């Protein structure tokens, strides 16, 4: 039985699931891919981005990481569901929603 959610992938057999999908570890939100059903995805144009950081707190998940220097980095598509809030929040048109082709 795969004990950890981190090791549980969509090819897991019913025999290897934890009982009742119970979770035996903390902070599984960091290891479980929640961006796998995205239809649209945000793409950033760095030439337009002013690092105003209005986008980062708008993200309902953890898809816009901000580094130690206080600069936003590229999208984390492991979590991004393509909701498009960031694209709406950006005052400079630096974020465009495009069709997800992954």
């Amino acid at each position, binding site marked *: 039985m795969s004990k950890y959610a981190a090791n549980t992938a*969509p090819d897991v*057999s019913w025999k290897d*699931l934890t*009982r*009742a999908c*119970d*979770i035996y570890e903390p902070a599984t939100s960091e290891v479980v891919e929640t961006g796998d059903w995205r239809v649209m995805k945000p793409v950033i144009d760095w030439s337009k981005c002013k690092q105003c950081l209005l986008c980062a707190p708008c993200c309902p998940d953890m898809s816009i990481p901000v580094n130690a220097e206080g600069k936003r980095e590229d999208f984390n598509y492991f979590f991004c569901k393509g909701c498009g809030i960031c694209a709406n929040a950006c005052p400079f048109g630096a974020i465009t929603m495009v069709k997800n082709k992954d």
Partner: protein
Amino acid sequence: MAIRERLSGNEAIAYAMKQINPDVMGAFPITPSTEIPQYFATYVDNGEVDTEFIAVESEHSAMSTCIGAEAAGARAISATSSCGLCYMTEMLYIAASDRLPITLAVSCRALSGPININNDHSDAMGVRDAGWIMLFAETNQEAYDNYLMAMRIAESVNLPIMICQDGFITSHAIENIDLVETEKVQEFVGERPLDHYLLKPQETMAVGAYATPVYYMEAKRAQAQAMIDAKDAIRKVSKEFGDMTGRYYDLIEKYEMDDAETAVIMIGSSAGTAKEAIQDLRAKGHKVGLIKVRSFHPFPDKEIVDAVKGLKAFAVMDKDDSFNGHCGPMYAETCAALVAAGVSAKAINYIYGLGGRDVKVSSIEKVFAELEEIAKTGNVGETYRYLEVRE
């Protein structure tokens, strides 16, 4: 030495609970199961048990209480009837799919309407797809015995279990009963085997996770396997119980089936009435028998198929109607088992005893008379029948 007593079915269940001394009870009163938490609350108040008794505001909350307690690692119990069981339904599914071996005593009662407080099986049958193991008792003794076996069975497959008896007919009737000594009960029931539970030190745990479509079916398949495995668990625990008490139980009980030509299949207290009818008919030379179903879920499919092989005709008796226009739930399950085994049979379905309608020895004799007519003529006629309804 076993203790000879005289107890009602509800008292017998409450006494079994007291002997087991579980950790948590969440319960809400409803006729005819009210006495169970009432007696048990007295034990709690007298300090005869260590159980945390939680007086909740509804059956939905009663089952929620049990779910939380059982997930935490406790042994949790409840008792209910009729619309109380209906009101628990949402949480019954959670208990089963979270694989929590809760024990629920059910004193079966009709559902409204018309409003009725008497016995039939429409409450228990209404929640038959919730994923619970369901054992039914013919007598107070069986209700007590099933209860003593319940936790061992449930905990060995991580599924919740319902211990059903007939409301009023056994729940309120006082019968002679053999009780097991409390020390023996505690040794037999033992401690709940625990691997993962919420209050386990050094392990973070989440119960009741969300499963996306890629995982949900696998989780359900695993749950289905637990119910398949429950058949062996029931047999194993029942054998151990028999070795301790001399009272042996199986998934089904066959009564006068060795040379039977016609038979009835039924659940609950009316099986006792059928036994009386069978004795009377056998004295007159009729080769009649009974298959009493103790475990409704898991359904004893192969066992019933084996038992009905060679019968000229039989009737499946449902104390409930599915209102699907053609049969009750026991008949549906029995016929599915027969088809899967490639066995054809002359089988009719009787809906009987609804809302406390008295089932007499003569009622069962009427069923056998119909069966013997079918055996003689080979003509089954209408399979969906109501027993002794006024035309």
